[in-house]
């Protein structure tokens, strides 16, 4: 096993989360706004070609945080335009991220139906 890779994953993935925590602690940004900002930031960094090197460097440390979701949106759009032209602008992003979104919806639905809500302390 490549321990160096796991160190990079931990450092980069952890850093992205630490930035999110700093935003929660020291700004008025709510968690929902942070998630939206992370995805949009991922699209922008992906579009500028900055995020791909980070993915190559840190693997899941860059793809698992929601900025990676944004990066995947931009990557999907770019590939789809190269393949399908104009239609790719609309189809590329959601096609690339469809497995993750569908998984969240379907597992969310299944487990919401199975389990009972718990009282939050």
């Amino acid at each position, binding site marked *: 096993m490549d321990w160096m890779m796991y160190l990079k*994953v*931990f450092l980069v*993935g952890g850093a992205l*989360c630490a930035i999110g*925590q700093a935003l929660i*602690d020291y700004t008025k940004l709510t968690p929902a706004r942070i998630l939206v900002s992370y995805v949009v930031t991922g699209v922008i960094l992906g579009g500028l070609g900055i995020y791909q090197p980070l993915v190559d460097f840190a693997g899941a440390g860059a793809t698992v945080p*929601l900025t990676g979701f944004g990066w995947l949106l931009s990557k999907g759009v770019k590939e789809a335009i190269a393949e399908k032209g104009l239609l790719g602008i609309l189809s590329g992003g959601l096609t690339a991220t469809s497995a993750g979104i569908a998984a969240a919806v379907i*597992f969310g639905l*299944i487990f919401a139906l199975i389990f009972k809500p718990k009282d939050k302390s």
Partner: protein
Amino acid sequence: MSMTPQEYEAINQRYSPASKGWKTIPMAWLFGGIICCIGQALSDCYQALGLEKDIASASVSVTLVFLAALLTGLGVYDNIAKYGGAGCLVPITGFSNAVASPALDFKSEGLVLGLGAKMFVIAGPVIVYGTAASVIYGLIIYIFHWY
């Protein structure tokens, strides 16, 4: 879709531990780093099983989303998130939790306008603005032939 201030506060509080800075930021780093390392381990496993890199990566997302939705259903994820803060919010597991948690909590208001609608309280905006940003990016690179 409207939320009462109490509902909004509840979602807000889930990811906002009481103490500040010096404790919460390293904890977020630790929990987020561990979740990403689990993702990397899954990715290595899937690739060892012969999956292509992109397919392995998407399968990792699906696996993490599944685990987070299950832990949310069991009431475990919210307890972990009390310690991990943004470390449990920023990874894709946090996205999954943001879908499953309101779905579960609002099931009592009905399967359509309760569970079905409220599951997108946080995921909805993420998809809306993520898609919008990607379409703007697509228009730009289409016009300038940067693809």
